């Protein structure tokens, strides 16, 4: 009898342990239930712009309990590496992918593949040619291009030659900025875009290309640099050549180097986007997509033209210098 009693007790203890362990695991499940794995794959894993994006994304990740993986190739024109990264994210069965496509067309296929694996893809900063994309979060690049062109033409008093230093051929945001700019310039018959070059997000290359351009077109009155790397290269070269103020420069984004050039009067204006908001909203909307909440098709995080006059406005300072050093 005592034997059966012991057996009975053992069974009860076993059941208790089982239930207790069950309760533990279930509560953990409860937590992981809400924690999503989101991969953010950007064009480049360095640079002030992308670091700011990352900062915003991390804030959102903390707020929405997201396990965020921030990835990017070493260089902005390494499209193959970016495709590999997206494939890796698909293999790792991440819950959602936030993609800033280095190439509008080349990343379309892998985006479709993610869609096939039921992984939602959100475009951030730069669009990709895929219907699978849930939403686009970023600057209206066409508008930003127009803003840059408007300021440059103002600075050139409505006439003269303009050079264009873009970054990667095929990058959607570069193309949109360029077309916005060209469309605006088209209204001014005395303004002529004489050259367009691609620096591949390489400062040295940008400087060299600028040098070539200025030598080729000595009367050039203005240069538009379409991203921060191009801006740094162009302004450094113009400064080196002692043409500061004579060749007007309007650029994009606000790395410290560009800000310095702005204060020194070599760069006259820069169109800044809102990388922090891009990163933050991208993660936020990714969570919303995963939770089945409807997200708008396009989220414009805005753009702003910064010049010497407004660069020290308190609300601009934080945006221009996101990192406290």
């Amino acid at each position: 009898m005592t034997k059966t009693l012991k057996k009975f007790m053992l069974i009860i203890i076993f059941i208790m342990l089982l239930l207790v362990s069950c309760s533990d695991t279930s509560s953990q499940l409860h937590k992981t239930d809400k924690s999503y794995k989101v991969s953010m794959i950007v064009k480049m894993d360095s640079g002030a712009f992308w670091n700011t994006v990352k900062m915003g994304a991390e804030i959102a990740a903390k707020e929405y309990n997201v396990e965020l993986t921030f990835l990017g190739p070493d260089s902005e024109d390494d499209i193959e590496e970016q495709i590999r990264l997206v494939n890796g994210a698909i293999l790792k069965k991440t819950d959602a992918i936030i993609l800033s496509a280095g190439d509008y067309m080349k990343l379309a296929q892998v985006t479709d593949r993610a869609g096939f694996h039921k992984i939602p893809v959100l475009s951030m900063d730069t669009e990709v040619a895929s219907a699978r994309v849930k939403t686009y979060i970023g600057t209206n690049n066409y508008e930003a291009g127009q803003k840059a062109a408007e300021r440059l033409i103002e600075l050139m008093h409505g006439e003269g030659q303009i050079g264009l230093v873009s970054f990667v051929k095929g990058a959607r945001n570069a193309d949109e900025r360029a077309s916005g700019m060209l469309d605006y310039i088209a209204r001014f018959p005395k303004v002529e875009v004489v050259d367009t070059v691609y620096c591949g997000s390489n400062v040295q290359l940008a400087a060299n290309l600028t040098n070539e351009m200025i030598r080729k077109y000595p009367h050039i009155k203005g240069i538009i640099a379409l991203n921060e790397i191009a801006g740094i290269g162009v302004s450094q070269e113009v400064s080196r050549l002692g043409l500061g103020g004579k060749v007007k420069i309007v650029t994009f984004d606000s790395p410290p180097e560009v800000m310095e050039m702005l204060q020194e009067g070599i760069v006259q204006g820069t169109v800044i986007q809102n990388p922090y908001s891009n990163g933050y909203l991208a993660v936020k909307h990714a969570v919303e997509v995963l939770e089945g909440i409807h997200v708008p098709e396009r989220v414009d995080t805005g753009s702003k033209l910064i010049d010497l006059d407004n660069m020290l406005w308190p609300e601009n300072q934080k945006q221009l210098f996101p990192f406290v050093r």
Partner: protein
Amino acid sequence: MITVVVVLLVSLLLYNKFVKSAEDNAYLNIQQIIDQVNSHLELYVKGMQDIYEVVEQQIGQTGNISDSLLKEQLTTLLHTREDLVSLALFTPDGQMVLDVPDETMRRNTQLKEQSWYQTALKQPQTVSFSQPHIQNLYKGQYKWVVSLSRMITYKQDGVLKKGILLVDVNFRTIDELSSKVSLGKKGYAYIIDDAGNIIYHPQQQLIYAGLKYENIEPVFDYAFGSYIDYSTKDERYITIRTVKPIGWKIVGVAYPNEIVTTKRDLQVFLTWFLVVVITVVLLISIYVSAKISQPIRRLEKAVKQVGQGDFNTPIDVKGAYEVVQLSKRFNLMLHQTRQLMSQIIVEQEAKRKSELDVLQAQINPHFLYNTLNSVIRLVERGEKEEVVTAITSLSKLFRISLSKGMNMITLGEELEHVRHYLIIQKIRYKSKFNYTMDVQDEALSCITLKLIIQPIVENAIYHGIELMPDEGSIAIAVKVEGDSVVISVTDNGLGMSEEVMSQLLTGSVKNTSGSGVGVKNVHERIQLYYGEAYGLTFMSELEEGTTVFITLPVVRNDHHVVNMEGDV
């Protein structure tokens, strides 16, 4: 059921208590964290003010502002503190008089538009702390600084002049200090100045971009304290402390629903705990009650069976100790009952048999025939009186021996019966013996079985006296000795050997003659009715005679006493 209720109650109490103390602890913890940040900041600000004063003093002591010694001293001072970015003195119209370190100024500094410059002009007396801003004066990195500025006096070539002293302190220390504050998972701390400008906020950019909103207004009502803010979707626990020297407010924001998460965890745990405990309790109680009730039910069944008359099935119930004991006892009881019953059966049979014997004795045809023969002889001899005596005695004898079918009669009646028997026998044996009766009056009213003395007397006559050549005598004596009545029947006949005596009561001596109610029968009847303490005992010696003692309990019956008096 009670256990379940108790468990529920206890866990509910525990839960409430636990949640309350967890909440209190969490709030206290938050306040302590903010307090700590506050004291750190106060200390830091105080340190900066001290440095400012030192710089001011050194400038004040120096006769000429362009003294290279002063510059050296200030450079050393700058290097002692890592977070000092720069020291500079400007004239009220924005010309630089002194700067440490010796860096090239940038162009387009717009310093007259900067807040530290303007506040120094507006409030020349106190050292003002600016909002954190980008220091754009010197080449090199753009740094976030907090500017300390005031209008001071300095001497240039011995001439007293007014100027604005600017000390820029790196904002990084404050930023790091504040960003490290974590209140729960989502909670944070932010700092605003006395005008409501954000000094530090982890989501400052989102607020500027309009993606976030911080409800600052109620914060102004407090310099120190805590409240719950319901302005946002999630309620928030706000703790406010003021950095006294500069009026900045540190605001801790915590989300009570995070505490609620621990509450929910606790709920989940408790629910599971309860489910487990209740299940276990139920299982155990079911098991235990089954363990106890099942054998009891079996016991009940067995008892019912016994009740229906089946005494032969022993109960074999296993289970708890008590139940086993119960069934053992019951079995024992059953066994005893069974024994008693068989005993009763045996006794009843014996009784019935002896009663039958008595009945036979009542109308012993042999005795009647002998007596009647004697009477006939008396009649032939014409002894009328003797005949009357004989018939009267016979009739009385029969009356008493029948005695309305009752088994019990008084000792008086019994002795009466014996007397009549002796009278008849005396007639029969032509006075071959004498008899005496010595009876205590006390004993007359005692109740006795009937026909117990007569068979003894009969024996005495047939076996003791009949074969004697001389005249025999029979003495009957009745005495009350304590609780018992002793009747002795003594004859002076042949007597008997020890051997015969010992066999008398075991029934191995067969007696064919006589009334048929043997000595053994008398003995058995007495023992059946009164127990083994009573019965017959013998005393005998060959050629001397025999005494038979009949021992009976004293049983009195008033009813019988009355009856007897009427009869005698």
